[in-house]
C-alpha cells in the first residue's frame, strides 16, 4: 500500500529544525495545511548567539530571529506560539495542546529539541542559571560585570563559550568540570589542553576532574557550589552547563519509540506517520551504523530538509539521512570548526598549522579511515578537507601530506600532553555529540 501524500502536516517545535521542515516543504511544492506549534512565545529564533553575541550584549534579542515576519508570513503557516504540545494520539492522528485544543495531522514532525539539564535542588534558587533560551541569556547577562564571581559547572560548549564572554565582561570565572580539559569529548585531549591554556591565559580558573555535587544557598540565593571531593567554591552566580536532555516527555503515552530521543529509522521516520528532526531525533547513521543523536545547529536544519523531502516522497520512497555533521564554536579569538564525528577516533594528525600557533587543521581517524577534521582559526583551509571525511578516505600516509606539517608533536612552549611521535587520540568513547 502506498501512503497518499499528506495534505496536513503538523510540526511541533518552532525553532531551527521545525522551521527548516516548514520552509523546505513549501519550497518543494507542498501546498497543503501546515501547522507549526511552539511553546515559546517568540517568533522562531536562533540559539548559538545566546552564549555569544546576546550574552555579551553585542546584539539585542531581535537579531536572533531566524526569519523576518514577512518571510514567515509567506510560508502560509498556521503558527501557534506559546502553545505546548502535551500529548500525542497516533491512533486518532492528533496532538493535544496545553489549552485543551487538538490539532490533527497526516504527517507529524517532532522537532521539540532539548532542554538544559539542571542540578538537583536548584529550581527556584536565585543566582542559578542554565543557558538554553533567550530569557536564560538575558538573565545571566545581568550577573556578568567586573568583580562578580561566576562559577560555571561543566566545561562543554556552553561552559567554554560563556566563560569567554564572562571574562570579556570582567567577571571572575571559575569553571568546574569532571573532565580533564574543557570540551574533552568534542575535541580530544590535545586540542582540549590547548583550549584549556587559552582560558587560563584569559584569567579563567579551571578546576578539572571533579563533579559538582550541589549548589550552596543562603536565603534562597546561590552562594557557591560544593564539589564531590568536599571542597567548596564561593560565587555570586552559578551557570550550570552540564548537557541537554531531549524534550520527549509529551510523547510518553503515544507509542512513539523513545530512548535517548525519538528513535527513528535511517530515514528519520519513527513509524505511523511520525518523523523527527533536530536535537530530539536519534537515528542509525548509515556510515557508522550507530544510533546517533546530534545536538548541533547545522544538523537541525539538514534533518529538517531531509524530513520534508521524505514526507513528500512517502515512507516507502524515503531516503536515509547521511550527513557530514558540522559544528562550530567561538571562544575569545578562536574559531573552532569540526566536520564529522570524533567518536571512537584512534589517531590525530595536524596537517596544517600547529598547536603553538593556535591555528591548525587536524585530521582525525578511526579504523584506518578519516572520520573528522577539526580546524582552529583556519575555516577555509579546514573546509577543503571535508571531502576526505565525506568519502571516509583511507588514512593518508605521512608521505601523502607535507612532511613538515604532519610529523610529530608541534613545537610548543609547554610539554605536549601526550608524548610520542603522534598526537594523542581523541576521546575513546565520547558522548552522543562531537
Amino acid at each position, binding site marked *: 500500500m502506498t501512503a497518499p501524500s499528506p495534505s496536513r502536516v503538523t510540526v511541533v517545535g518552532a525553532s531551527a529544525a521545525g522551521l527548516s521542515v516548514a520552509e523546505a516543504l513549501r519550497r518543494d511544492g507542498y501546498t497543503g495545511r501546515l501547522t507549526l506549534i511552539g511553546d515559546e512565545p517568540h517568533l522562531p529564533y536562533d540559539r*548559538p548567539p545566546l552564549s555569544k553575541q546576546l550574552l555579551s550584549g553585542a546584539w539585542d534579542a531581535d537579531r536572533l530571529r531566524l526569519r523576518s515576519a514577512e518571510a514567515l508570513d509567506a510560508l502560509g503557516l498556521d503558527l501557534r506560539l506559546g502553545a505546548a504540545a502535551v500529548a500525542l494520539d497516533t491512533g486518532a492522528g492528533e496532538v493535544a495542546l496545553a489549552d485543551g485544543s487538538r490539532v490533527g495531522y497526516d504527517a507529524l514532525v517532532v522537532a521539540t529539541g532539548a532542554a538544559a539539564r539542571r542540578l538537583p535542588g536548584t529550581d527556584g534558587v536565585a543566582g542559578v542559571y542554565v543557558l538554553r533560551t533567550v530569557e536564560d541569556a538575558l538573565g545571566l547577562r545581568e550577573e556578568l560585570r567586573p568583580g562578580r564571581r561566576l562559577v560555571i559547572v561543566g566545561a562543554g560548549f556552553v561552559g567554554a563559550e560563556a566563560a569567554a564572554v564572562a571574562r570579556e565582561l570582567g567577571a571572575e570565572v571559575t569553571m568546574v568540570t569532571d573532565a580533564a580539559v574543557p570540551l574533552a569529548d568534542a575535541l580530544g585531549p590535545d586540542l582540549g589542553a590547548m583550549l584549556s591554556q587559552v582560558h587560563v591565559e584569559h584569567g579563567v580558573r579551571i578546576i578539572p576532574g571533579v563533579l559538582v555535587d550541589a549548589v550552596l544557598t543562603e536565603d534562597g540565593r546561590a552562594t557557591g557550589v560544593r564539589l564531590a571531593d568536599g571542597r567548596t567554591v564561593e560565587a555570586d552566580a552559578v551557570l550550570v552547563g552540564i548537557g541537554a536532555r531531549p524534550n520527549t516527555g509529551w510523547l510518553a503515552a503515544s507509542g512513539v519509540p523513545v530512548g535517548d530521543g525519538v528513535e527513528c529509522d535511517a530515514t528519520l521516520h519513527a513509524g505511523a506517520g511520525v518523523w523527527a528532526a533536530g536535537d530530539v531525533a536519534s537515528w542509525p547513521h548509515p556510515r557508522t551504523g550507530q544510533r546517533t543523536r546530534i545536538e548541533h*545547529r*547545522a544538523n537541525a*536544519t539538514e534533518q529538517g530538509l531531509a524530513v520534508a523531502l521524505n514526507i513528500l516522497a512517502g515512507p516507502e520512497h524515503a531516503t536515509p539521512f547521511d550527513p557530514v555533521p558540522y559544528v*562550530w564554536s*567561538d571562544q575569545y579569538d578562536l574559531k573552532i*570548526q569540526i566536520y564529522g564525528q570524533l567518536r571512537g577516533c584512534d589517531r590525530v594528525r595536524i596537517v596544517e598549522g600547529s598547536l603553538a600557533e593556535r591555528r591548525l587543521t587536524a585530521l582525525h581517524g578511526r579504523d584506518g579511515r578519516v572520520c573528522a577534521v577539526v580546524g582552529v582559526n583556519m*575555516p577555509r583551509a579546514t573546509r577543503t578537507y571535508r571531502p576526505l571525511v565525506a568519502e571516509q578516505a583511507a588514512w593518508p600516509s605521512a608521505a601523502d601530506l607535507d612532511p613538515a606539517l604532519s610529523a610529530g608533536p608541534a613545537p610548543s612552549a609547554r610539554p605536549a600532553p601526550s608524548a610520542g611521535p603522534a598526537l594523542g587520540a581523541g576521546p575513546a568513547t565520547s558522548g552522543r555529540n562531537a
Partner: protein
Amino acid sequence: MKISVDVDKCCGAGQCVLAAPDVFDQRDDDGIVILLDATAPADQHDNVRKAAAVCPAAAIEVRQ
C-alpha cells in the same frame, strides 16, 4: 533574484559554498562569506535557495 548576506551573523561554516560555489566564497583568514554574485543567473537559483536554507547562521537572505 536579489541576494544579501549579513557578514556579522556569518559563522564561517562554508555550507553556502558547498551548496552554491559559483555564488559564494569564503575569506581566507576568517572564513566569512564573500558574495560573488548578488543577483545570480537563473540556473543558480535553486542552489542559492539551498544555500540560504542550510546556512546555520541564517545569514543569507534571498528576495525574488
